[in-house]
């Protein structure tokens, strides 16, 4: 490595004072970043990867402080530097890209103006040329029609576009170090690919160093030179990217590698090596009202929304001639079936209509047109408002995307699981309901003593288990899984996916698995439906769709997934 690293973190310890005393978020971390190098810091939530980079920029929040160690940036001691020196450094010499691009932009200021602000603050251009310079920068981050987009507000741009603007802001002053904190989490895979390629290309052009903080091993493997793996505030492994993936040394790295869904690995293989296989549970299909045909038949389902923008005011002043149709078709005439005991994956990028479809099947919103035939009965004909109290409600349940958001913060886990039982179940009496809750908790592997905790006292994986227990409390025939693992760490995701598979086998349910992640869908689903812009572009058996895709769009999705596979 070069003689003097650009950023040298030595023996860094960061402490946070909380009501439970001092907590060490980062302990004795050594990371050196050479000029022009891209380093990935990989770890699960709570591993201290973000805190390390915040400490390097000295933007820790009030409760946190650097307790020990040193941070040297281009020879400047960051710990000792004055606040005004640090302000000059941040943005001009080192800058940062945050996870949520929309939150990082000022919502009421035009994006061009925001770039101008940064330029002016660091005196990067003549006052007369600021605007031109901003447009130039927008062009560099490959925003089409930069002159128009200069006047756009953040809400007028897509998530990927916003992230490009954030990158433009971060790179406006040509910093030497870029810290990207989960820059593509929450973006679609195809957008992720273009954004990551943009970052890599720009940093290479300018000879910048980059720290990529991510939970995604595949992403780090694809774009980084060197990888630092962190666990519980410590660096457990640090090596050249290729070496980390071909010959991981630390057990934690191996565990992470195993848990990452990848082509060719089965669901069981995601779990740590020493996990005992589940007791073989006999498949006992739900016999309720079974008749010969498929469980769910969706025919020519359509959902239209009134278009925004064509508002009454515009019409009043005779502006905006209605060139576009008055309505927007979120779901455009799709048909599919789900058999008993089958899992079907519904895949697509954000805005493709997959969530709208699942919400309609769920009978939470009414469709504009089409039929939803469940168990031989057209439940699509029943208005969503009335559906809540019908016995059919019991037969279709759902596991939500965000385990935190989907649990009432003021209900204990037991109360949350009991809710559907109390409203729709046959079990009466406090003790019987409690017994049923405990039974369900055992089923989903939630320790019984956690049942009396509130959601904020549970970890992400435990909350996911509560959500699953609630969904299966009424023995439904169909469970809709709306990205049930999107908010979880990979190792937890592996466990939850296995749990779902096990439950399906033992309870004989059918799944409709809504996801953007083809690798995850592959593990759990028998068949896959790929959606784009409200239509089905491809459907068929999982292996066929994933290994011999017929549609270009499916191929595009598949190639956009980064995976640590250069040893293959």
């Amino acid at each position, binding site marked *: 490595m070069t003689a003097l690293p650009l950023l040298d973190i030595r023996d860094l310890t960061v402490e946070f004072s909380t*009501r439970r005393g001092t907590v060490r978020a980062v302990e004795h971390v050594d990371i050196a970043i050479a000029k022009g190098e891209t380093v990935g810091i990989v770890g699960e*939530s*709570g591993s201290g990867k973000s805190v390390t980079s915040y400490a390097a920029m000295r933007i820790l929040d009030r409760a946190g402080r650097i307790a020990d160690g040193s941070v040297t940036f281009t020879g400047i001691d960051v710990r000792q530097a004055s606040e005004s020196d640090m302000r000059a450094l941040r943005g001009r010499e080192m800058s940062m890209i945050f996870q949520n691009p929309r939150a990082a932009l000022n919502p009421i200021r035009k994006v061009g103006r925001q770039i101008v602000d940064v330029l002016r603050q660091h005196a990067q251009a003549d006052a007369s040329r600021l605007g031109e310079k901003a447009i130039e920068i927008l062009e560099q981050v490959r925003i089409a029609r930069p002159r128009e987009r200069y006047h756009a507000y953040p809400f007028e741009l897509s998530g990927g576009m916003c992230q490009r603007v954030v990158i433009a802001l971060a790179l406006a002053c040509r910093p030497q170090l870029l810290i990207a904190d989960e820059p593509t989490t929450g973006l679609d895979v195809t957008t992720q690919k273009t954004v990551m390629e943009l970052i890599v290309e720009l940093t290479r052009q300018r000879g910048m160093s980059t720290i990529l903080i991510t939970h995604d091993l595949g992403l780090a493997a694809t774009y980084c030179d060197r990888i630092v793996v962190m666990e519980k505030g410590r660096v457990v492994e640090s090596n050249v990217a290729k070496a980390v993936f071909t010959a991981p040394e630390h057990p934690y790295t191996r565990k992470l590698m195993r848990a990452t869904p990848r082509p060719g690995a089965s669901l069981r293989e995601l779990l740590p090596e020493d996990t005992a296989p589940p007791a073989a549970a006999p498949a006992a299909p739900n016999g309720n009202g079974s008749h010969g045909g498929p469980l769910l038949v969706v025919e020519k389902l359509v959902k239209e929304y009134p278009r925004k923008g064509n508002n009454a005011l515009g019409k009043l002043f005779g502006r905006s001639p209605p060139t576009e149709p008055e309505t927007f078709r979120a779901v455009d005439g799709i048909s599919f079936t789900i058999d008993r005991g089958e899992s079907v994956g519904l895949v697509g990028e954000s805005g493709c209509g997959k969530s709208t479809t699942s919400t309609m099947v769920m009978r939470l919103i009414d469709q504009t047109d089409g039929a939803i035939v469940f168990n031989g009965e057209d439940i699509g004909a029943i208005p969503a408002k009335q559906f*809540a109290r019908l016995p059919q409600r019991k037969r279709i349940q*759902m596991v939500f995307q965000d385990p935190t958001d*989907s649990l*009432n913060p003021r*209900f204990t886990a037991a109360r949350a699981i009991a809710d*559907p039982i109390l409203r729709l179940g046959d079990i009466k009496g406090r003790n019987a309901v409690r017994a049923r809750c405990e039974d369900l908790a055992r089923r989903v592997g939630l320790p019984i003593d956690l049942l009396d905790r509130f959601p904020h006292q549970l970890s*992400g994986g435990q909350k996911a288990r509560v959500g699953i227990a609630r969904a299966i409390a009424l023995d439904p025939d169909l469970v809709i899984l709306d990205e049930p693992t999107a908010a979880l760490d990979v190792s937890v995701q592996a466990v939850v996916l296995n749990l779902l598979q096990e439950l399906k086998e033992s309870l004989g349910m059918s799944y409709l698995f809504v996801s953007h992640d083809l690798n995850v869908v592959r593990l759990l689903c028998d068949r896959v439906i790929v959606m784009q812009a409200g239509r089905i572009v491809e459907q068929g058996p999982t292996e066929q769709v994933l290994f011999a895709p017929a549609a270009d769009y499916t191929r595009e999705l598949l190639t956009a997934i980064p995976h640590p596979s250069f040893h293959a």
Partner: protein
Amino acid sequence: MSELTLPNGGAPPEAAPRRSSGFMATLRHARYIISDNPVTGFSFALFTIIFIAALFGPYIVPYDPLASDTVAALKGPSAAHWFGTDQLGRDVFSRVVVATRLDFIIAIASVALVFLMGGLAGIAGGFFGGWTDRIVGRIADTIMAFPLFVLAMGIVAALGNTVQNIIIATAIVNFPLYARVARAEANVRREAGFVLAARLSGNSDMRILLGHILPNIMPIMVVQMSLTMGYAILNAAGLSFIGLGVRPPTAEWGIMVADGAAFMVSGEWWIALFPGAALMVAVFCFNLLGDGLRDIVDPQRRT
């Protein structure tokens, strides 16, 4: 499979063995909040004093608050009469302490009433949207269109000069505050995952509203209630000050200030000052209390 506790998964590890009962946990949490924030501790202490005065006031004061003693009229503060005496020789200290109960009752009753009216109407408006929202919103706007104190005066003047009507007037005047806060909070939660989940569990709209959304809004409403307590006391005292509402010779802070105001110019400052100070301390206390209460009831901070 059961060891899913994450490495740093958020659940505080040592929380489990210390759980005894919900009440003890709340007490422990309250103690933590108070020791964490001395201002909150101070406001709680103040509240306790006010509460005791309201509860036991008439039994602990040295003099009968209504007994006049013309010989001892208009005497300044002394060892016998800590806050001095008024023009009829009544002990100002006794009257200030005894008045606490009446003002306290007016404040609590009006806040409870406005919570039931405004809070529930606001939650319904925010949750159902559409016409419910429009009607609640327009009622709030109409009330806001009047200068609030003048409106309260009008209501008391129209309904009659009683404590009950002061309570109603104060509640109506505060209606928009509650309706708007509750509406905004309910509206945010309308699309939350747990509301959808509740719907899937077969909960009716009413049950979702009262069983799922209301408990989540309570922390904010409690803060709101504490803040309006101060305002309600001020409002009641103001009405009494101008001769509406509580009538003399009943001991009430507003009337006492009104009585004493005439004597300020002639140098008998204590008659108006002490009830005025009591009023100020009470309002101050309730405002501080609001912040402290939020910390206690907020589930995000309770571990």
